[in-house]
């Protein structure tokens, strides 16, 4: 059980848990998706969305609508919901929710770092950042003009500083490929978050354990698959794997030595979940492994809602909502491109 267990959980977090479950009721249903898929134009799409939990969120947007606008507004709604929750949270939920924003923060920071390399105007870049990953010192980023300054002045003030300190030195910042830095940070973050969840114990530890282990494994497999044919060396690749997960340690060690797709297939063969996902992706030509992963993630996240009095639903809600935004974006994209052949790629959440 999370802090307080069944009997005391509600003292601090019951209200928020109930709210997040209320939000969950707003997640589009399969009937909603069926309606959305019937749309011929994005205007229809907007009309259909007003009938759902999204309501009039697009009413002030001038026509013609862009798919990005729709997605941005959907994301804004998610961010508003998340902020409403996180401002009311007390410890330790507050810390937990902060952890949830770190991935966005990593992405933002990486964007800013690349921008600073190019000596771009930082204030312009901030507009491009994910709103969930904004941090206080971001406004002061404008003063940083070189990567060194950025590192010394800004990064140390962010919650990400320990991850940076652990695995990225100042020299790496300029020498390494930015994608490697991103993934190194992500790895450090996942490991830290995993530790934190285990410390919380109870259902939180159990469910978050499942979700994060899957996340770690997925990253390991993705990184391996994607590194073939690139300049990423094997030892670098190995350093990007997390130190937990279903594949850890044996599968990870073997993945580090994998050379092609078929060897990856044979490595994940002994792991039932991944074997199933792999064959699901291979059997269906319209689906790739990533789609299979998304589906499984949704499945896991849905499971988190089956239990009460734990924090994993906050994480799960964020994941499900992101999937929903992806779905909306996908359907809108198909509609605007008038290409409905692949329309059914979206994953129904509930």
């Amino acid at each position, binding site marked *: 059980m999370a802090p307080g267990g069944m009997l005391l959980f509600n003292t601090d977090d019951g209200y928020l848990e109930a709210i997040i479950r209320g939000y969950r009721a707003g997640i589009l249903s399969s009937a909603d998706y069926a309606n959305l898929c019937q749309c011929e134009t994005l205007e229809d799409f907007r009309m259909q969305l007003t009938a759902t939990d999204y309501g009039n969120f697009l009413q002030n947007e001038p026509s013609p609508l862009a798919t990005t606008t729709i997605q941005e507004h959907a994301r804004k709604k998610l961010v508003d919901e998340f902020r409403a929750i996180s401002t009311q949270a007390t410890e330790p939920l507050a810390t937990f929710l902060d952890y949830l924003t770190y991935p966005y923060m990593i992405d933002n920071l990486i964007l800013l770092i690349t921008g600073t390399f190019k000596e771009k105007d930082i204030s312009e870049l901030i507009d491009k950042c*994910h709103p969930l990953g904004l941090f206080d010192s971001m406004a002061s980023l404008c003063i940083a003009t070189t990567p060194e300054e950025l590192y010394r002045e800004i990064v140390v003030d962010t919650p990400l500083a320990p991850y940076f300190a652990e695995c990225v030195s100042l020299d790496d910042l300029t020498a390494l*490929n930015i*994608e490697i830095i991103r993934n190194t940070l992500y790895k450090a973050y996942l490991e830290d978050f995993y530790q934190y969840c285990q410390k919380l114990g109870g259902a939180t530890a159990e469910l978050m354990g499942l979700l994060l282990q899957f996340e770690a494994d997925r990253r390991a497999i*993705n990184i391996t698959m994607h590194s073939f044919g690139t300049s990423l060396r094997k030892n670098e690749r190995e350093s990007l794997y997390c130190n937990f997960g279903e594949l850890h340690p044996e599968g990870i060690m073997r993945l580090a030595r994998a050379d092609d797709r078929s060897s990856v297939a044979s490595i994940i063969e002994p792991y039932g979940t991944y074997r199933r996902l792999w064959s699901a992706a291979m059997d269906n030509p319209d689906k790739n492994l990533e789609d299979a992963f998304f589906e499984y993630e949704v499945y896991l996240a849905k499971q988190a809602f089956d239990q009460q009095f734990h924090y994993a639903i906050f994480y799960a809600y964020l994941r499900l909502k992101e999937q929903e935004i992806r779905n909306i974006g996908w359907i809108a*994209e198909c509609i605007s491109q008038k290409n409905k052949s692949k329309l059914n790629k979206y994953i129904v959440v509930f």
Partner: protein
Amino acid sequence: MASKDRLPVVPSRLSLQQMKTKYQGASKGHSMLKKKSDALMVRFRAILKEVYEKKLEAGEESREAMMALAQAKYAFGGELKHTVMETVKDATLTLKTVSDNVAGVQLPSFFKSEAEPGEDGGGTMMLTGLGKGGESINDARDVFTHTLELLIQIAALQTSFLILDEAIKLTNRRVNALENVVKPRIENTKKFIESELDELEREEFFRLKLIQNKKERERKKAEGEQAKVANNVELLTPFNPDKFANPEKATDLIGVAAGVDEDILF
């Protein structure tokens, strides 16, 4: 016959000869340019068809590409565009041109030249989506590269199209100029020179006839007055150039004039 339709020449045999060579040159140039224009036209038609087909094909292709991109965005998230745009540094895909010579017209064709992705710089895009979305991003990259190849071909064709169009117009203009301006003008000049020369001949002939008549009359008068001095007359006649030259020249001239007249007629 207005004077501007012919070249300003002094009508003489020499200039007539010059005109004849000029006319030959113009005819030869005309036929050669005509051939060039035909050659260009053949190429042009081929390109026309290809441009048309390729453009429609590219339309289809880019639909597919957009779909693949949507998939990449689906897998990676909406920030893909920012990530991609901020990672841009040096182009890894550039063009090289090779020109092709068609009847003296340089037609460029473009070739894709891919730089080897560098250890850190050029290959940045290769690692985008390492942790998630990489597969879809790679797919999108492939489709877009393919579309781009098609577009490059179209670009080459289109450039050729424009150049050829221009070249054909130019050649046709020249052909027409030769046919409708230069050649008639030379012909007119030729006619003019010939008619002038003719005129001169006729004048000369008439003059000679007059002189002959006069001489005849004088001779008859002299015969009547000094019939007895026959030896002197016989001695004098061979020395008179008119007596020998006139009849020959006269026939000659008429023959030439008739020939020219026939020429003019046909």
